[in-house]
């Protein structure tokens, strides 16, 4: 049987990209209907989100360094993590809010679409109010990188690696988010689980992992590998140890984590049964 143009893999991919673009632009237009709300939400998120950096700044103002890392060096850890988190929340917010789909039974409507459920979810919404996190992270990163470039601790090539690390961290957040969302197929409520896998873990990676006990370091590098996105490359870029492998690790960890998370997603999806309302 010959395949029709719409079912050819290449045509389907192009159609998917086109659909993704259309749906995202519709989402942006919808969000921009409430411009004032958008500006207020983005600004307040950026300001209130600075709490973690405020804690870091106050501690370093008082004690100079955390395990030999100064404010600019920790600023890079913070920036990579926050930009990654911002990217994830802007483009993948429906994954973060997946619990609602299961609780309300809305996932049924996702399944009847002629596209994979993950694609449908990811193309549903682009939440620009989360830009605040991205801008805030990028701002802290720019100030820190500038100071470290001037001090000769960081090179321009290193800045390029930081950009790769930011994107990789965004993918790692997506992988962790997908794996956590997959648990909703089984346990339904995942909000509390997200506090553990995302909030606690991302807060931990704002500081050098050397300060933690071995079990926590291993967890942040191998189980919930958010530390592989920021700590591993930044450590090498600042000359605090490691090899070029540290720079290659973030994209590799992101790719492997996404594969594993996709597998978990399909596993959960195959066992999904509706609320039956």
């Amino acid at each position, binding site marked *: 049987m010959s395949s029709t143009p719409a079912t050819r893999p290449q045509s389907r991919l192009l159609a998917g990209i086109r659909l993704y673009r259309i749906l995202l632009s519709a989402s942006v237009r919808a969000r921009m209907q409430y411009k004032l*709300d958008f500006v*207020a*939400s983005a600004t*307040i*998120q950026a*300001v*209130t989100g600075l*709490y973690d950096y*405020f*804690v870091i700044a*106050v*501690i370093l*103002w*008082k*004690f100079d*360094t*955390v*395990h030999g890392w100064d404010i600019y060096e920790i600023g890079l850890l913070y920036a990579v993590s926050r930009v990654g988190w911002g990217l994830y929340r802007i483009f993948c917010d429906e994954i973060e809010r997946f619990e609602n789909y299961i609780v309300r039974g809305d996932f049924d409507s996702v399944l009847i679409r002629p596209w994979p459920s993950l694609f449908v979810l990811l193309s549903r919404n682009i939440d620009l109010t989360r830009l605040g996190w991205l801008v805030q992270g990028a701002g802290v990163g720019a100030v820190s990188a500038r100071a470290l470039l001037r001090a000769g601790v960081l090179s321009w090539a290193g800045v390029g690696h930081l950009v790769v690390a930011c994107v990789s961290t965004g993918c790692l957040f997506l992988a962790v988010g997908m794996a956590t969302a997959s648990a909703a197929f089984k*346990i*339904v*409520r*995942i*909000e*509390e*689980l997200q*506090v*553990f896998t995302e*909030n*606690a*873990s991302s*807060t*931990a990676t704002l*500081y050098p992992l050397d*300060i*933690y*006990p071995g079990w*926590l370091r291993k967890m942040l590098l191998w189980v919930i590998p958010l530390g592989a996105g920021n700590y591993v490359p930044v450590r090498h870029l600042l000359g605090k140890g490691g090899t070029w492998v540290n720079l290659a690790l973030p994209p590799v960890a992101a790719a492997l984590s996404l594969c594993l998370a996709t597998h978990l997603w399909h596993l959960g999806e195959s066992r999904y049964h509706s609320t039956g309302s």
Partner: protein
Amino acid sequence: MSLRGLRKYWVLASKGFIQNLQYSASHLINTVASAIFGVIYIYLWRSVVPSSGFGDYTPLVMTYYISFNQTTMWFTQFGIRAHVKIRDAVRSGDVATELLRPVDFFSYRMASEYGSMVYGLIFRGFPVGLMLSLFGYYLPRNPATWGWTVLSLVLGAYIAITHLYLAGMTAFWTTEIRTVYWVISTLNLTLGGASMPLEVLPQPMYTLARWSPFACLTFNPARIWLELSGPELIIPAVVWTVVLTLLAQWVTGMARRKLEVQGG
């Protein structure tokens, strides 16, 4: 009633039980997450505080400080839903019925929140404290300290509920309370001293925080518990309780008038 009739109640009761078991599991996960937050801050402070300490705080005292705060934050910071309930009631119009009840609206919200916060302390806070006791947990030697700490926490919870009650009441004018909520939550954490003693803050932020209502949520109770300060720290909590109660009653009165003007 036939056995068949009773069976449906049995099934419903079983489902309710299983549903609660699911929530218990998710609460357990959250408890682990809270303990992880505690571990993060304990190790962070241990890595920066010199062994000679700063002010009243040695690395061990900082461990006690974080362990205590992670326990009591489930009573004085987390789990308050007053703002969400008021917002939803305003949006749905149910608030008109609620204001008609022969109970003071503010006291009604306060009482219902205390119940859930006691649950938070017993089923979330205490397990977190138990986990963090592996790293160190201070128990006061003076029995009076236990009593002063409980009083301080009860007043701290009252102040925290009133903060979010006021945030919720803004729904009468704006319907969207997210911004106010974020600001208050951030101030609760930052100026409350949840993850750092206020002495770390630079001046004049320290003085501002020290006498703000936010310090009554975690910082003051922790200092009383650790026997670093005496019961005199109850006084600012009492003052803020009175001030915020008057403010809440005034705002409630204004909201009631606004609702009547709109014909709700």
